[in-house]
């Protein structure tokens, strides 16, 4: 039973991790909590649905379609919403509120277009169950976890081993110095938004196919939990996001196992509260220096 619940928690935890990485990427580069992220996640799942249902695409083409459109939407959010603010030298709060506003617009447009009720989503990898250590485990969970982990590893290789990744890290460290060294900072920021949005789209698609339904409010809870996961692990740190996601996922399934479903939020957020009281910058986060 414990093993089964652990697997349940890990499966959902990898999804949180995948979304949390998006928060972390943008935060790392702009020091900004991107509140559009949860709506982009929803948009990603809806784009796959649109691809399959309205454009009659093959499911893999539909996912590709979603990756491109959602990634593009992420870039647009930056170009139309945030870049003008950066040029103006507006405050962080302005940028933050802009993202809240944009997220409101995206979600409610989806709501107007598709309604608020649940919609059936194609099932991508339902291969029944198997037994492990006396626990019944669905193949779905294994596949979801594996896909999410592969993506996370790929993302981490991209950021740590490639030239573009190097440029991204440079911009994270010191945007003005990076600009002097010939890095197109706005390009890199757009790329970051693209990566964040695309990973959110994949996470959204995975979750929609895992649950086999989608709806416009699906991002609310996941977005919040993933944000909590990013902070818990140390926002700005990629391994931290993964760790945070897994911790939140497992703590939730343990809450259901031991306490009951309505304690999910309480357990997840109390945990966060406690961790931050002990480690104010998250588990793997580092203290930013302040100059006097």
């Amino acid at each position, binding site marked *: 039973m414990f093993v089964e619940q652990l697997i*349940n928690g890990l499966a959902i935890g990898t999804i949180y991790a995948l979304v949390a990485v998006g928060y972390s990427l943008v935060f790392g580069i702009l020091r900004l909590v991107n509140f559009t992220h949860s709506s982009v996640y929803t948009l990603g799942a809806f784009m796959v649905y649109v691809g399959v249902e309205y454009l009659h695409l093959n499911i893999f083409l539909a996912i590709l379609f979603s990756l491109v459109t959602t990634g593009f939407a992420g870039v647009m959010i930056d170009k139309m919403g945030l870049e003008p603010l950066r040029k103006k030298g507006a405050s962080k709060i302005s940028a933050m509120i802009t993202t809240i506003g944009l997220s409101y617009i995206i979600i409610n447009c989806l709501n107007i277009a598709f309604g608020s*009720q*649940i919609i059936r989503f194609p099932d991508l990898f339902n291969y029944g*169950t198997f037994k492990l250590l006396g626990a019944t485990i669905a193949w779905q969970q294994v596949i979801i976890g594996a896909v999410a982990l592969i993506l996370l590893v790929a993302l981490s290789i991209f950021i740590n081993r490639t030239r573009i990744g190097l440029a991204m890290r440079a911009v994270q460290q010191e945007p003005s110095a990076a600009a002097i060294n010939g890095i197109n900072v706005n390009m890199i920021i757009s790329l970051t938004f693209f990566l964040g949005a695309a990973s959110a789209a994949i996470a959204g698609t995975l979750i929609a196919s895992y*649950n*086999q339904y989608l709806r416009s409010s699906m991002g609310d809870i996941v977005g919040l939990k993933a944000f909590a996961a990013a902070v818990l692990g140390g926002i700005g740190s990629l391994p931290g996001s993964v760790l945070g996601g897994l911790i939140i996922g497992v703590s*939730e399934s343990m809450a259901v*196992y031991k306490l009951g479903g*309505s304690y999910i939020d309480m357990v997840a957020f109390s945990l966060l509260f406690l961790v931050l009281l002990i480690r104010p910058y998250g588990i793997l986060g580092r203290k930013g220096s302040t100059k006097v």
Partner: protein
Amino acid sequence: MKKKLCMLLALLLVVTTLGACGNGAAPASTASASASGGNPTDKTPIKVAVAGPLTGNYSEYGIGFDAACKIMVDKWNKDGGINGRPIELLSYDEKSSTEEGLAIAQLLCGEDNFYGVVGHFSASMAVGTLYTEERVPLISASSSSAGFTGQGDCCFRLNATISTETMGMLECAKTAGKTKLGVVYLNNDWGRNAYDNLKTLLQEKGNEDWEIVDAEEIAGGDMDYNAVISNLNAAGAETAIMFCYYDSVVPFTIKARTVMPDLNIVCGVNCYNDTFLKVGGKDVEGCMAPSVFAAVSDDPDVKYFVDEYKARTTQVPSSLTAQAYDAMGVLLTAIAENNGELDKEAILKSIQNNDYKGVTGSCSFSENRDATRNFSPMVVSNGQWIYY
């Protein structure tokens, strides 16, 4: 700064005082209007309202209520209205918010020639007292809260009470012969009350027919149901009693089919709807629910309603929608019964004493203003709700 502030405050005061006056003046004009109501040549429309969430997370309920009430009002108007006067349906959006619902109730209480409300979904527990104070009949098609009709003698309920519904669900489980119950209940007033009710019912009956092997409280919405299903599986549940809305039942069922293919799923009245079938697809085949309404019935009234509803919304009406249709029927009949004598107390009395026969069966009210409802077990087969 101070001066501007003072001006603002003054403005606020003026505007709001006007508001308060408006509120005071409104009932007076209503009274004068109802006095002239008896005039047979009067063509002023008789106003009734439907209030439900047309937007927000529960919009499908409100949209259904709205469409059903329109069909009923159109039917009456086609037959010449009430006493030669046309009926005007005011339709309000609660926006899935209690405050909005209350605001609407206040707005409605200020209307002239206004005689009753069907609905309130999100705010049904907040508006009852107000309507009772204003003597406006309120007929709910969806409320299952224990305290709803206790708000005042103008609150009527055409939905089953929790205990009736629970009993209906238990009968479903018994009919299917799977009596080891795993209860899944939503952490809201309905879910919790229903679970408590179930426990009491089983105690009274001495547990001979059924046994609760596990109970799981869920947060609803988009939670991950795997952990809950693992618990149910470990406890050896044969039947899942679902005290939750269909938007939790469907995801739960889809998940449960992978791990527990033989689980019998019994859900509440609210699952009798089209979206449930459409989204659930093959996974909800075999799900059971007690219902007062059967769209497959041969009854001509039911056929008329179902055909009209399909024509307008392309969907089959849900059980709650059908109740809203009947609620409007009850209200209009009561208004008509008084034969132009548009007195609210008389209308209330007519509603209380009615023996309206609607698409959901007999709609007479008990002393507590709760309708008696007769359930039949229904089951999903070939993508349709049919009699079990």
